[in-house]
């Protein structure tokens, strides 16, 4: 009899954690310890040689952190996960494991500003170049691939552009050239979209956002599909003896979780952006209710989008969950259905009548909607990206990232929808000045 395939609502609560072997504790214990004792010198040797699995030092692995890693891997339908101190750290670990000096990345143009900086500035300084292309065009990804390209990077839903990526089409382009597709899946969360189902090879999350949901804790997770053929000749770091970890051949030894093991032993271990056990525990408190919260985020965001569209003080509304959104068919194909409508997450953007000054007045008139640089909180959050999250980019880069000067981004929270609509309405009235 085949093993049962559990639904995400069940995995969000159970995957990665069974009752503690020693105490029977049902909830996840916090193993707040830097180090773990060896049973013997031989046991220590086996652990260091990776011949047995176990914990050595919490910069490499920790039982509380492992519960988060496995849970997100299970929710994504992936083979293995690796947690880190933030979403940016998860991206950096994936890319630094994959890439070497002289390599090239093809990336979507409409990316989170921090990711653009990592690719265009930080990795560029290490001799790794990136070509940014129109995320709506799989052909543009194909045209930008060079002989030294080693990764294709995009977001399932762009933040803040809300551009929806045709994951299957871009995965096909990447795989035709023997390249892995990396997807930042932060905005939909693993409940609404599983990029691996559509061909992605590595998924990264800022767990700080919907996975945690409470806005208290920073964390990141990388998940690998276990399906990428790392022995295709382009990735000697996966197949040759590791210089970074005494000669281990990661793909041969660990097979379908070889990339995560290499990321853990070569990159996380050396660069040190490990997640604290207490932070992992806090994120997991949120993950248990992820499916419930995402359903409400989607329902509230749809109601807000429809309200804004009919409001005289609003010039335009961008929400992929609206039936007349240009990418709605793609949204319906890639996202989980919530109440019979494609769940398009809780982010939307709109332009306030009166441009930039009216946008600023709108934000300052809000009663409980919080003006801050985060998304995916229980609270409704508002921000003007052009003057905050994306201000380090020039005008052309801002437009390429989908940021218009009059654009307000809403991360619709879990307050009562009537109260959210009331706060938006009164702030829009105040925006007239």
């Amino acid at each position, binding site marked *: 009899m085949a093993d049962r395939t559990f639904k995400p609502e069940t995995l969000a609560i159970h995957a990665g954690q069974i009752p503690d072997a020693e105490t029977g504790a049902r909830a996840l214990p916090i193993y707040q310890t830097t180090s773990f004792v060896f049973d013997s010198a031989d046991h220590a040797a086996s652990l260091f040689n990776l011949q047995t*699995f176990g914990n050595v030092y919490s910069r490499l*692995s920790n039982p509380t952190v492992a519960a988060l890693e496995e849970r997100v891997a299970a929710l994504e339908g992936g083979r293995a996960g690796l947690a880190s101190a933030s979403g940016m750290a998860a991206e950096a670990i994936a890319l630094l494991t994959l890439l070497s000096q002289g390599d090239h990345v093809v990336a979507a143009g409409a990316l989170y500003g921090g990711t653009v900086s990592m690719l265009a500035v930080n990795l560029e300084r290490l001799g790794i170049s990136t070509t940014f292309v129109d995320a709506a065009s799989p052909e543009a990804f194909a045209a930008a691939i060079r002989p030294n390209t080693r990764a294709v990077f995009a977001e399932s839903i762009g933040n803040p552009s809300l551009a929806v990526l045709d994951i299957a089409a871009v995965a096909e382009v990447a795989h035709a050239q023997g390249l892995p597709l990396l997807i930042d899946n932060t905005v939909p969360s693993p409940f609404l979209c599983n990029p691996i189902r559509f061909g992605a090879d590595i998924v990264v999350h800022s767990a700080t956002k919907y996975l945690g949901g409470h806005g208290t804790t920073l964390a990141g997770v990388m998940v690998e599909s276990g399906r990428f053929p790392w022995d295709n000749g382009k990735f000697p770091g996966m197949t040759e003896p590791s210089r970074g970890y005494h000669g281990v051949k990661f793909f041969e030894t660990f*097979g379908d*979780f070889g990339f995560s093991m290499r990321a853990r032993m070569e990159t996380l271990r050396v660069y040190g952006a490990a997640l604290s056990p207490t932070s992992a525990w806090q994120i997991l408190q949120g993950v248990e209710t992820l499916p419930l919260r995402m359903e409400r985020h989607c329902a509230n965001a749809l109601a807000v989008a429809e309200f804004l569209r009919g409001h005289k003080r609003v010039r335009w509304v961008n929400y992929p969950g609206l039936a007349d959104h240009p990418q709605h068919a793609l949204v319906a194909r890639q996202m989980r259905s919530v109440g019979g409508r494609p769940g398009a997450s809780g982010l939307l953007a709109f332009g306030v009548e009166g441009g930039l000054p009216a946008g600023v007045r709108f934000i300052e008139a809000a009663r409980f909607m919080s003006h801050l640089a985060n998304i995916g909180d229980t609270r409704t959050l508002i921000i003007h990206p052009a003057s905050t999250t994306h201000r380090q980019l020039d005008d052309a880069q801002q437009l390429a990232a989908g940021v218009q000067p009059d654009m307000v981004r809403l991360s619709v929270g879990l307050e009562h929808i009537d109260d959210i609509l009331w706060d938006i309405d009164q702030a829009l009235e105040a925006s007239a000045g």
Partner: protein
Amino acid sequence: MADDIPTLRRILRSARTIAIVGLSAEWHRPSFFAAKYMQEHGYRIVPVNPRYPEILGERCHASLETVDVPIDIVDVFRRTEDVLPIARQAIAIGAKCLWQQIGVKNLEAARLASEAGLDVVMDRCVKIEHARLFGGLHWAGVNTGVVSARRGH
């Protein structure tokens, strides 16, 4: 073919001796990783490889035919096309399980062993399955598929 968690648990729990066909003495080879891990977890390893006299402190046999202890699992680290005679030998020595490692998928050998009453596992690593089902692999962030309200072990 055994592919579900309860059956794999039963096979690994009831076994004491594992003959590893194609075991390498090189420390960085996957077969050595697997053998050392299983030995450390209480299994008696019986190496089968004509190239070595001894591996991991155990006498190495040139073939399964000369093995003189009862074998529970015959674990095969050989190419798919070489498995059929190993399956016949596994049946002849009364082994209880024919286990083909990751990437080894000889369907004919599996059918033969299954008809002779052996448990049959294919395209899985004995070490990874042990670590997945009895703890350890979880610490490497791997999606073990284990959902349970019973404590570990």
